[in-house]
Each structure stands twice: as C-alpha cells, then as structure tokens.
C-alpha cells in the first residue's frame, strides 16, 4: 500500500520503543495520520506521551540503541522514509523537512558562528556558495527580526539572548525553504510576550513560504490560534483528532474533555471555587494496561475499557476518537471505581 494521494506526509502504524535496564518503554504505540499540503497540524499531549519521540522517528533521529522504530511507515513523496538510505535522509532532513526545538542550543553549534551554521545548510541543500550563501544567511536573519543582521551573522550563539537564539534557529531551519516544518515545543521555555512574538513570526513565515507544519505542544492555548487540525496524544496513542474548531467546541475523548475542563482561562472570571483536575497520573510506559491507557483516570470508564484498547474511529465528519463511550450521554462516576466492580 502506497501513500494516500491527498497527503503530503503520511505516518502509518508507527511504533517506537526504547530498551532500558528496567524493560521496554512503549513510547509510540501505533499512530497513523496524514498531513495535507498547506496544513498546520497541532499535536497536543503531556510529557511522556510520545509526541516528541514520534517527531524524531519521522526524522529518523531516534538514538539507536536504546531506541528503535519497531514498525510502521512514514511516506513522503511516495517513498517510505523509514526505508530510505542515510544519504537520502540527509537531503530530506533540513532540506525537505526541517525541525525546530524547545531548546535552541540542541540545534545550534556553540563553536560556530550563526552565519556559518546557516550557510552550511544552504550550501548542502540549496547549492549556494560563498557570497550568495552569506547573503542568504543575512536575509534569513533579517526575516526573523534579528537587528543588524549583517553584523549578527558573525556572532556566536552564546552572544544571543534566549529569544534571539530561538529566532536564529528558526532562520536556520527555514533557510532551505523546507516543505514541512516540525516545531517541537518551540515556545515552551519562553515568556508569554516572547512566545507571542515567535508564534506570530512562525505563522507569518509559514504563510509566506507556503509551508505545511506540525506543531507539537502541551499547551492547548497555543494550537487553538494556529492549527487547522488537532490531534491529542496520550501514553503513545492518538486518542482524538478533529478540526481545531470542532475539538475545542465539542471534545469527545474523556482525556481531551478533562484537560479542557481542568484549565482556568485568562479571559474568564473564576466560576468555581475549585478547579476540576484529572485525578491520578499517566500510566507507566514500561507496563501499559491491556485496555484503554486512560482507564484508571476516566470518570466514564466501563468494563470493556479494562480489557480492550479502543482504536481511533470516526464519530462525525472529520472527527475521530479512541473511546468506547459517548461522553455526551454516558453516566459518570468517580475515576478508578470501575476496578471495584
């Protein structure tokens, strides 16, 4: 089976695991989705839900060992990136699919000038040389809003502030005009005013450069403003997927619903004395339960949830959930009590 015709990137049944002294960590447990041309996909989840590991798997950047992509396919331009040669991947990485990270120092080399790091990328991927490459670097720094780019191109990463490094990393990632940008929590370590600057910058560049984007975050607020579709990830599974409007207006997976209900909102007056948290904590990825991974925290859980893990299934146009119950009508109980029955 080849790539779906309407997809730019297609992830199919991806499974990634880590072998540790304590056992096998089930980080990504068979996720499938398509990214369409020009689309921005938000992927939301907490730490340890596999959202970053899934992105590193697409880029084939999983450290092996201890990590291993155990199964699955990642189609890009009608070929499976998981089967591509390392030489081939070098052109895809950075050239076709670029990635930006939470900590810019993970992608910036501390002993190389910012300019050199950008020229290296455009030399490799776009065949620019010498003056042309340097000019491209200056143009990119200017585009991301770094003042005096002709001078700053000679600076080292440590001479930049946190927000500036983030911009430099974005300049480097976009210098090759990639088709897809994967943004892995790029604003998490930043203050809200700087986050607003970076989100504004990336969305403007996305539109100018006509890129598709995967934006990974734990912050339900950030993706509400920039994504076309949103997927929610939990314990290595995709549990809900819908258009951005639909998922916030009509969340149907108990986890998504729980997250949205537990967060106070900056634009709303306090309505309840107490917040409404999701009880408990995520399951141990070394020892996943046989049924639904959310069962022990779910106020809607029924017997079936203990035994069978639901697959992502369509419940309405463009809306899919992995859940046996309908949260609109199902009775609720205290989370965890299903074990007592």
């Amino acid at each position, binding site marked *: 089976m080849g790539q779906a015709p309407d997809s730019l990137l297609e992830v199919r049944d991806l499974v990634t695991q880590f072998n540790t002294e304590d056992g096998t960590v089930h980080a990504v447990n068979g996720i499938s989705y398509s990214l369409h041309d020009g689309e921005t996909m938000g992927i939301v989840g907490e730490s340890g839900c596999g959202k970053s590991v899934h992105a590193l798997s697409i880029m084939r950047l999983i450290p092996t060992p201890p990590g291993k992509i155990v199964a699955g396919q990642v189609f890009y331009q009608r070929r499976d990136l998981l089967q591509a040669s390392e030489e081939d991947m070098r052109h895809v990485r950075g050239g076709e699919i670029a990635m930006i990270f939470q900590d810019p120092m993970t992608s910036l080399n501390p002993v190389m000038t910012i300019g050199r790091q950008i020229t290296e990328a455009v030399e490799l991927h776009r065949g620019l040389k010498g003056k042309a490459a340097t000019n491209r670097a200056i143009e990119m720094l200017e585009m991301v809003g770094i003042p005096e780019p002709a001078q700053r191109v000679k600076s080292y990463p440590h001479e930049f502030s946190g927000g500036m490094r983030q911009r430099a990393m974005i300049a480097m990632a976009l210098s090759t005009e990639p088709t897809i940008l994967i943004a892995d929590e790029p604003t998490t370590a930043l203050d809200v005013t700087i986050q607003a600057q970076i989100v504004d910058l990336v969305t403007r560049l996305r539109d100018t450069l006509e890129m598709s984007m995967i934006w990974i975050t734990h912050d339900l607020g950030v993706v*509400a403003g920039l994504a076309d579709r949103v997927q929610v990830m939990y314990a290595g599974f995709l549990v809900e997927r819908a258009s951005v409007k639909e998922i916030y207006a009509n969340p149907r997976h108990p986890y998504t619903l729980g997250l949205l209900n537990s967060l106070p909102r900056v634009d709303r007056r306090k309505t309840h004395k107490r917040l409404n948290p999701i009880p408990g*904590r995520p399951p141990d990825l070394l020892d996943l339960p046989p049924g639904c991974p959310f069962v022990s925290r779910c106020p809607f859980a029924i017997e079936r949830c203990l035994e069978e893990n639901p697959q992502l299934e369509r419940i309405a146009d463009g809306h899919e959930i992995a859940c046996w119950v309908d949260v609109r009508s199902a009775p609720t109980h205290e989370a965890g009590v299903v074990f007592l029955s």
Partner: protein
Amino acid sequence: MKNGKIALVRVEGVKKYFPIHSGILRREIGAVKAVDGVSFEIYEGETLGLVGESGGGKSTLGRTILQLHKPTEGTIYFEGQDLGSLSKDELRRTRARMQIIFQDPYSSLNPRMTVEAIVSEPLAVHKIGNQNERRARVDELLDRVGLNPAFANRFPHEFSGGQRQRIGVARALALNPSFIVADEPISALDVSIQAQVVNLLEDLQDSLNLTYLFIAHDLSMVRHICDRVAVMYLGKIVELGPTEEIYNNPQHPYTQALLSAVPVPDPSVEERRQRIILKGEVPNPANPPVGCNFNTRCPVAFDPCFVEDPELKELLPLHHISCYYAENELVGNT
C-alpha cells in the same frame, strides 16, 4: 489596617542589588538591580499574585521578603516586626512562620533523604518534639497533602513530579507557618497535574488560614487563585490591584500586552483577539533605561517617560498604576 484588612507582610522601599565584580582585583563595576524600590502589603488570608516575565525580579523579591537575601535598601515588616532589626536567633524563630515552596520538585528535595527526614527536618532544626512526636507529625502532614503516610520511608525519586511537589508543601507546613511564598509551584508540572496541586494549595489556605505570595507566569492560573495581583517589570511593580480589576481593566501598557499574549484554548476567541506584540526583550537589569523601565518596548511612551521613572499611584480605587500615559488618560494632569 487598610480597608478593614490586616497587613501580615509590609514591604517598604525594598531594593536588592547584586554587585558585579570584574578584573583581578574583583573591583565592583556595577550592580544588577534585581529589585529596585518596591512597596506593597500582603493582607492576612489573601493570595497576592506576583507576575511578570523572567528576569523581572519576582523570585528575588520573594526571597528577599523571607530574608534569604538581605535587602540592599528598605524594610520588610512581618506581623508588625521589622525583620532587619531582629537578632539571628529571633529571625530564626520568626522564620518558622514564613516558608517557601520551590518551582522545581526535583532539585528542591535532597535525593539522599527519605520523605520522613525531609518533612521532619524543620522540626529537628527548631528542636520541636521528640522522635515519636515528629514521626506522628510527619504522618499528619503527609495525609494533609494527600500522600499515603506509609510512603514516609521512601526516597524522592520514587515519586512523580506532582507527588514531590506535595512533599515540598508538607515540609513547608511542618512549622505551622502563617505565610508561604509559592515560587512558581506548578510551572514544572504537567497540565493534568497542575490543577491537583492548585486545589491542594487552596484547600490548605482555607483550613490553615494561610497567606500566600504566589509567584507565577501562568496568568490563567493566577486569575483563578489570586485575590490581588502585582505586575513586576525589571525590578519594579508597575501595576497592583484586585485580580478582577486588573484582568478586566488593565491600565499599564505592559500588563495589557502581557494579558493579550496569553493564548486562550478556544479558536473562536483566538480568531477575534487583538494581540499586542511587544518589540524586543526585557532590558539588562544592570543597565536599566533612563526614565520608565518599560520605555524601550512601550507602544505609547511619550516625552516624560524618557525623563523620570513614574511612581506607583492609586489612580483608580484600590488599583495602583505606575505609568504617565495611564495617569494622563485617567486623571489628565501630566
């Protein structure tokens, strides 16, 4: 007493500068003005939120109030006493009633100590009770913060982030404090765990009549938990008032930008929202601008803002603002 409320903590003209040394003689060549002249009160039983960007001096201010840093200038009163005038012994005794909860539940707990040793350490330091009494007190405290007392012999690494934060809360409660500085207590926790810890802090406040200084950058959570909010920018308080007043009617351009920058988990709201995108970043606190500290990023700065620093004034009832532009708009006397 003000508006029928008792000030548990009173901060008067407090500055905290950290000297910068350079050269082989380690000569002092300047100072980082982390806190640069702030005055406010924290009323008994309230939660005062302290918000603003990193580098604004929030944590330094919290620690200076607890005398973990000695203020460079100014006075801090706790229960009416000038903390700077106390002897070492008196300060130690008073400190039992003011505690801190840290941001990072990983680095703030000694990994080689059991939970029991961690939570009972303040009791041992203050020589309270014998071993059995301390043990009983630890059980009571763990129960209070929602941890199973049977886990008292375990080590911090055996607990999740949210549980570790509960251990930190239990330790802070050991000496029956009346005042707690909560320094970003939920920032390091996962979204689904944050609400659990916030509920715990609120329950404890109600049952133990605690007063909180809640330092945070999550403005959504601050709106939920705080009675009043102080907004800090580059070592100064630029706006201070009741929470709903600040959120509904922010007057300082920095507060306005800060609130507008917080994303809302609702696409229909996000679509309509006008975001104020501030230029640039927080200036270096070793070399703050002349005039108002915010003038390098302010969208409405005008002549007086570049000459002298505006004072924090009560321009609206209970609502204090330090801004010439707002003063002009509201009072029209500049």
